[in-house]
C-alpha cells in the first residue's frame, strides 16, 4: 500500500519562491546612509559635526545672500534698507561693476575688450580641443593682433604690419629650413626685423587709417587686466619655457649652466620681488632715456617667472620619454633640431600638458600680486578706489567674495579641463 505525498499534503509548491526583498536596513536610502554616513560610531559623530558646521555656515550665508540689497547709493543707504536682516550690500557690485571688470577703461568703448574676450574663446578652442578642424588655427594665429588692436586701439596698421613681419619671417624660414635649421631661424628673424623696420615709417604716415580711440595702458584695469596678464604671459612663456627646458637638458655644459642658473634663480625668489624689479629697478638697466609702460615691464617679469616654472614641467616631460625615442631619432639620421621638432617635443609636450595647465592656473592667480605695485587689477581696484571711497568704505565681504567667485570660476574651469585632458591622454596611451 503506497501513500504518495501528493495526496497527503494539502499543497505542494511547484515553482520556486521569488527572492524576498532585502531587509529595510539593507536597501535604498537607509542602506546608503548606513554605509556612507554612520558605518561606525566615529563616523556617525563626524557626520553630525559636519551637519552642524554646514548649518552654521548656511545660517550665516543664506540671509546674507537672500536679503542682499542690490540697489543703493552708498553703504549707509544699504544698511538702512537691510535694517538688521543680515543682508549683504551687493549694491556696490551693481554700482561699481564697470570698475571691477574694466578699471578706468573709457565707458563707451567697453564693447572692445568684451569682443576681444569673446573672440578669445574662439581663438583657444582649437588649441584646447584636438578634434576641431585644424584650419581654425589660422584665427588663433591672427587673434593676438586683433586683440591688441581692440584693447589698446590706435591705427590698425600697427598690428597689421606686426603680423606682416611674422608672415615674411615665416616665409623666409620655410624656404631656408631645408638647408639648415639655424639658417632658417636666423634668416626668418632677420627678414621679420627688416619688415618691421621698413613698415615702421609707413605706420607713422597712415596713423588715421581705421583707427580706434587710443587707450592708455594705465586706464586698463579690473578683472580685464588679470585676464590680459594671464593669457599674454602664459602664451609668451610657453616658447621660452621650451627653450629653457631644452637648454637644461643639453649636453653642452655652458648652455646647460646658463639655463640652470636662470631657472633656479627665478624659482628661488618670490614673484613680488620680481614685480618690484619691474617697478623700480628695471629702468636702471635699460639704455638712458628709454621709458616704456609699466604693464609691459610687468609682462616681461611675469613671463620670465612663468617660463622658469614651465621649463621645469617640460623637463619632466622630456625626462619621462623613453631613451629609445632619442636613439630612434638618431638612428634615422635626424639632426638635433629635426629630432626635437619631429620626435621628442610633440611627445614630451603631450605628457606635460597637465603640468603646464597647473602652472597656468597658478600664474593666473598670481596676477593679483600686481595690485601691490599700485596697478589697479581686480584686487587693486577693490583695495584702492572702491574701499577708499566714502560711499563704500567697509563693504569687504561682498567685494572680496565677488573677486573670489570670479577667480574660482576661471581657475576651477581650467583645472577641470586639465583633468578631462588627462583622461583623454591616458586612454590613447594605453
Amino acid at each position, binding site marked *: 500500500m503506497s501513500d504518495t505525498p501528493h495526496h497527503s499534503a494539502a499543497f505542494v509548491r511547484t515553482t520556486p519562491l521569488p527572492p524576498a526583498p532585502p531587509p529595510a536596513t539593507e536597501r535604498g536610502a537607509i542602506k546608503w546612509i548606513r554605509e556612507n*554616513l554612520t558605518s561606525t560610531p566615529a563616523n556617525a559623530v*563626524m557626520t553630525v559635526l559636519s551637519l552642524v558646521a554646514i548649518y552654521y555656515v548656511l545660517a550665516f550665508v543664506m540671509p546674507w545672500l537672500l536679503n542682499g540689497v542690490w540697489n543703493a547709493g552708498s553703504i549707509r543707504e544699504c544698511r538702512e534698507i537691510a535694517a538688521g536682516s543680515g543682508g549683504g550690500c551687493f549694491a556696490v557690485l551693481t554700482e561699481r561693476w564697470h570698475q571691477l571688470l574694466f578699471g578706468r577703461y573709457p565707458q563707451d568703448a567697453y564693447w572692445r575688450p568684451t569682443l576681444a574676450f569673446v573672440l578669445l574663446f574662439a581663438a583657444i578652442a582649437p588649441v584646447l580641443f584636438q578634434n576641431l578642424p585644424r584650419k581654425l588655427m589660422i584665427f588663433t594665429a591672427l587673434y593676438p593682433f586683433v586683440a591688441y588692436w581692440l584693447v589698446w586701439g590706435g591705427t590698425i596698421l600697427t598690428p597689421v604690419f606686426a603680423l606682416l613681419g611674422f608672415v615674411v619671417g615665416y616665409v623666409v624660414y620655410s624656404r631656408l629650413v631645408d638647408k639648415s635649421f639655424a639658417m632658417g631661424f636666423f634668416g626668418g628673424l632677420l627678414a621679420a626685423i627688416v619688415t618691421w623696420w621698413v613698415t615702421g615709417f609707413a605706420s607713422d604716415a597712415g596713423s588715421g587709417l581705421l583707427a580706434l580711440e587710443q587707450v592708455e595702458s594705465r586706464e586698463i584695469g579690473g578683472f580685464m587686466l588679470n585676464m590680459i596678464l594671464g593669457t599674454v604671459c602664459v602664451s609668451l612663456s610657453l616658447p621660452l619655457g621650451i627653450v629653457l627646458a631644452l637648454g637644461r637638458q643639453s649636453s653642452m655644459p655652458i648652455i646647460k649652466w646658463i639655463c640652470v642658473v636662470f631657472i633656479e634663480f627665478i624659482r*628661488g625668489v618670490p614673484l613680488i620681488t620680481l614685480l618690484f624689479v619691474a617697478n*623700480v629697478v628695471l629702468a636702471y638697466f635699460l639704455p638712458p632715456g628709454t621709458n616704456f609702460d609699466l604693464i609691459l615691464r610687468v609682462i616681461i617679469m611675469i613671463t620670465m617667472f612663468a617660463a622658469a616654472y614651465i621649463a621645469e614641467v617640460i623637463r619632466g616631460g622630456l625626462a619621462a620619454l623613453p631613451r629609445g625615442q632619442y636613439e630612434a631619432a638618431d638612428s634615422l639620421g635626424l639632426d638635433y633640431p629635426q629630432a626635437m621638432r619631429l620626435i621628442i617635443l610633440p611627445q614630451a609636450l603631450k605628457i606635460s600638458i597637465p603640468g603646464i595647465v597647473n602652472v597656468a592656473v597658478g600664474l593666473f592667480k598670481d596676477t593679483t600680486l600686481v595690485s601691490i605695485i599700485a596697478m589697479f587689477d581686480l584686487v587693486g581696484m577693490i583695495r584702492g578706489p572702491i574701499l577708499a571711497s566714502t560711499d563704500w568704505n567697509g563693504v569687504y565681504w561682498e567685494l572680496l567674495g565677488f573677486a573670489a567667485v570670479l577667480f574660482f570660476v576661471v581657475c576651477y574651469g581650467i583645472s577641470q579641463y586639465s583633468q578631462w585632458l588627462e583622461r583623454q591622454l591616458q586612454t590613447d596611451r594605453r
Partner: protein
Amino acid sequence: MTTLTDPPQESFRLSMLLNDTRYRSYTFQFIALIGVFLFIGWLISNAAQNLEDLGQDISFGFLGEAAGYDINQRPIEYNSQDTHLRASIVGVLNTLIVAFLGCITATVFGVIAGILRLSNNWIVARLMAVYVEAFRNVPVLIWILIIFFIMTASLPAPRAFRGDEPAATMLFDAFAFTNRGVYAPKPIWEAGSMIVVITFLLSVAGIFAYRRYATKLLYDTGRLLPTFWPSVALFFVPTILMYFIMGRPISLEYPEMSGFNFTGGMQVRGSLIALWFALAIYTGAFIAENVRAGILAISKGQTEAAASLGLRPNRIMNLVILPQALRVIIPPLISQYLNLTKNSSLAIAVGYMDVTGTLGGITLNQTGRAIEAILLLMLFYLTISLAISAIMNVYNNAVKLKER
C-alpha cells in the same frame, strides 16, 4: 687579401668648428657665452650710465644709518633709532616666524583634510573636497585680505571688554580677540626655568631613543615593546616633576583690561594672524592633495600582502603603507613649504613687517636704494630656497628605492 687600415687621420681645420658635430658644440657654447657676457655688460653699462646721470652710486652704507621708522611686531629689541640693518633683521625674523608657524599649521590642516577626503563618510569627504577646491582656486592674496578684514573689521575693539556688563568676553579669561590683535597669556621665565625646558627637550629625545630601541629589539629578537603609553609618560612625567621640584619657575602673565586697552600678556597682531592663517589654510589645501595622492599611490596589493603576512591594521599602516607613502608625499610637501615661505612676502598687503615690508618696503622708499635693497631681498629668499632644496636632495637620496 684585404687589410684593415685606419681611416685617414684628418688634421683639425677651422671649418670643422661649423661642420663637424664633434667641434660644433664648442662654437655654440662660445657664442652663447659671448652673448651672455655682452648682455650682462650692456645691462651694467646702462646701469652705470643711469646712476651717473642721477648722481647715485651703489653702496650698502645705508644699512648702517638710522632707520627712523617703527616696527610694531618685533621679536628682538628694536626702536626707530636702530639701523636699517637691524630693521632688516627684524623683518627676516618676522618672515621666519610666520613661515615656521604657517608650515606647521598647514601640515596639520593638509594631513587632516587629505585623509578625510579619502574617508568613506560621504559628507565629510565632500566637505573636504569643497575646502580643497575653494582654496586652491582662489588667489592667496584674496584669502589674506578676507581673513585680515575679519580680524580688523568684525572683531570688537578692546574697549568692548570694559565694564561690568562688557559687550565681549574673554575666552577662558585668558584670550581676548580684538580688532587690534589677539591678547594671550605670556609665559614668565624665572630662575630655574631653563632646567625645566632642558628636561623637556631631553625627554623628547628620550622618546625617540626609546622608539628606536623598541624597533631595533623588534627586528633583532621579534619582541614587541609597547610604544604609545611609554611615549606619553615620557612626554609629560619628567617635565611636570621637574617643574614642581624647581618650585614652579614658569608662570603665565594674563592680559588685563586697564583703561581702554589691554596690558600684560602677549599681543599677537591681527596682520600676523591673518597672514599665518591664510597661508596655512591655502597651502593646507595643496598639501591635502599631495597627501591624498601619496596614499592613493600605494597599491592595494601592499595592504593585502601585509595582511596576508598576519600584520594588524595599525601595523600595516605604520610599517608598510606610511613609509612608502611618505616617499611620495615628502618632496612635494617640502616644495609647498618653500611656496609658503615665498608667499609670506605678501605680508606687505596687510602691513605685517616681514623682510619685504622692511627692507623691500620702507627702507627702500626712505633711502631710495632700490638696486641694493632688492638685491639683498632676493639673496635672502634665494638662500632659503637653496637651503631647503639642498635638504630635500639629501632626503631624496636617503629614501630613494635601493635598486640593484
